[in-house]
């Protein structure tokens, strides 16, 4: 009898290819939308002009600048953030076996918020000739790491980190760091505006595309690779930690790797773009209801779905001048509600 998993793998690969096409389409379409007055046709010709086998027509430089250096970096940022949040959300849901789990549950986001707020209040954002915007994400990332370690250490019992204590530790860390942010905000003067702006979430790569390429992308890629290697383990963990050990898993090490990689990618994207909610909770659930719970297909699908979703949300946000976090909730909620009603159970807990 033929192994159904190979057929399954082929089917997954095919649907992923289709999704990738969809994502590419979303990228192209989104790059044609913006307040600058560039028509659809002009936009396409700009995009084509970059391809080496297409003859470079006379494309006005300002259009090139806007499309390639204003819009596309932002779209790439949205892709990275969306994919990271969706993947991290899926990992935490599997790791914690809790449907309410999402990337911010363990306090990583509020740790990042503390780092960013401190950087702005102390004035680091205006150092180095006024454009030390690098410091804000750098300190935010540091804050995220601190929160991650704090939650982990807090949750340790003996040598193990049980899942339920991890959730509680995350709640504590979240609450504490959120309170710190509140305190700083109340004392902030002119920086208040910048802080609120950061907290609401923003996909503009303010720290510069160089930072994006040299720092964010590699870290995210490393995180993704690690998670990809541990997808099968996530499947087995679904049977409970005891069963996982009895099936031969080194549960402690696996949990550590998954925790660190998911926190890492969350920390990086929150440091860059503030707190954009809803993506990390709802995208994994929606994808799971459509493609099933096997993490080897769930995680890559969630990545692409998250990327596309956030690009769409950001485009709407740009056009309507609304914070992107509000848009993700406004379009995501009805869709998720629809799925809940028409599909089977979200998770068996």
């Amino acid at each position: 009898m033929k192994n159904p998993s190979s057929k399954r793998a082929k089917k997954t690969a095919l649907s992923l290819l289709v999704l990738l096409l969809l994502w590419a389409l979303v990228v192209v379409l989104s790059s044609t939308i913006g307040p600058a007055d560039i028509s659809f046709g002009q936009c396409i010709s700009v995009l084509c002009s970059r391809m080496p086998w297409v003859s470079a027509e006379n494309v006005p430089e300002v259009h090139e600048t806007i499309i390639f250096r204003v819009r596309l970096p932002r779209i790439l940022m949205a892709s990275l953030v969306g994919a990271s949040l969706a993947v991290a959300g899926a990992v935490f849901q599997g790791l914690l076996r809790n449907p309410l789990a999402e990337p911010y549950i363990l306090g990583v986001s509020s740790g990042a918020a503390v780092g960013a707020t401190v950087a702005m209040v102390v004035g680091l954002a205006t150092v180095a000739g006024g454009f030390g915007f690098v410091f804000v994400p750098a300190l935010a990332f540091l804050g995220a790491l601190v929160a991650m370690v704090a939650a982990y250490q807090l949750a340790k019992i003996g040598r193990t980190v049980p899942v339920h204590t991890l959730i509680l530790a995350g709640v504590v860390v979240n609450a504490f760091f959120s309170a710190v942010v509140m305190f700083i905000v109340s004392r902030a003067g002119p920086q208040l505006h910048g802080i609120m702006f950061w907290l609401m979430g923003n996909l503009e790569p303010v720290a510069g595309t160089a930072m994006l390429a040299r720092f964010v992308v590699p870290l995210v890629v490393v995180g993704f690779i690690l998670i990809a290697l541990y997808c099968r383990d996530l499947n087995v963990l679904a049977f409970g930690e005891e069963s996982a050990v009895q099936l031969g898993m080194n549960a402690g090490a696996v949990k550590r790797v998954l925790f660190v990689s998911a926190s890492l990618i969350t920390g990086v994207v929150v440091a860059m773009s503030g707190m954009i909610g809803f993506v990390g909770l709802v995208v994994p659930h929606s994808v799971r209801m459509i493609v099933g719970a096997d993490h080897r297909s769930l995680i890559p699908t969630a990545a692409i779905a998250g990327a596309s979703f956030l690009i769409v949300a950001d485009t709407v946000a740009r056009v309507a001048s609304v914070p992107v976090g509000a848009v993700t909730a406004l379009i995501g909620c009805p869709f998720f509600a629809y799925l809940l009603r028409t599909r089977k159970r979200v998770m068996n807990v």
Partner: protein
Amino acid sequence: MTDAILKVVGILGDFFVRSPTRFAPGTARCLTAFLVLAACFGCDRSGDDRTSVEAPRIVVTDDTGYRIELREAPARVVSIAPNVTEIMFAIGADKKLVGVTDICDFPPEATQKPKIGNFVNPDLEKIVAREPDLVIGSGTFHPVLGRLRDLGVSVLSFNPTTIDELLVMIEKMGVVMECEAPARELTTSLTTEIESVRSDLPTGDRVKVFVEIWHDPLMTAGAGSFVNDLVETAGGDNIAASIRNHYFEISQEHVLDANPDIILAAYMEKDVSAREMILNRETWRTVSAVASGRVYDDIDPDLLLRPSVRAVHTVKELAERFYPERFGEQSK
């Protein structure tokens, strides 16, 4: 185009899938796609606009310590703050102004200029679409400025908190726009104006002034805000100056305790009748300013809060209200 990319992706993906040690095939494909597309579009062209063979003619440092060097005066300038727009017109550089904010309303001609968003949220794309050589901001360290620099646009960011700093800003703008003469003229006349008010101030006790920026919550402006310097220059003592810096929420107790002689209402929301509201406050009846009726809401808040030329003229009006005996005869 996209098909070509995906064909490449497919080939790479197959490579990943067929080799004996492999990741989940889907993830490998995604990663490859990401990297390929990122490489295509994410190339960083951080060119250095400022390398030049000869020594640059124009060198200006802004209030954050950032230094720009230009070979010639910029031909296209975008302003992302209303006071910058006002100054551009005042020094005669308005011809080169190609973009302003939604709230740049003075002088009236400014409203004819193309818009690039508002002061709080300037739109990066709109700014770039104007193809500026220089962007000037004031009072904001908006992340957009960082992105502009990233894109190779020169940016100046000022933050004048006193009249003296404002005068320096006007001079620097004169330098960068090569309108030094008109700028110098302007600063000189403003300085003279300030001096004449200063010299006429009475010696002895200064009036205590409370600046009410908003009523609910009760907000005021402390040390380090521009309006604070206006008040101080006009001979008043801002009661909030010793409490905190910049704009902040203040409790009524502080006001009752300090017992100001003058209350200046500078609500951004121009529809509210501030004077009536303040005079009707039950708990404030004991405050000297309320008792004596010296509550003023008739000065346009833009003139108080926006660090610009008109604000300097406002010093005189403030002095008239603070010391009517001294300046009263000269008032309108």
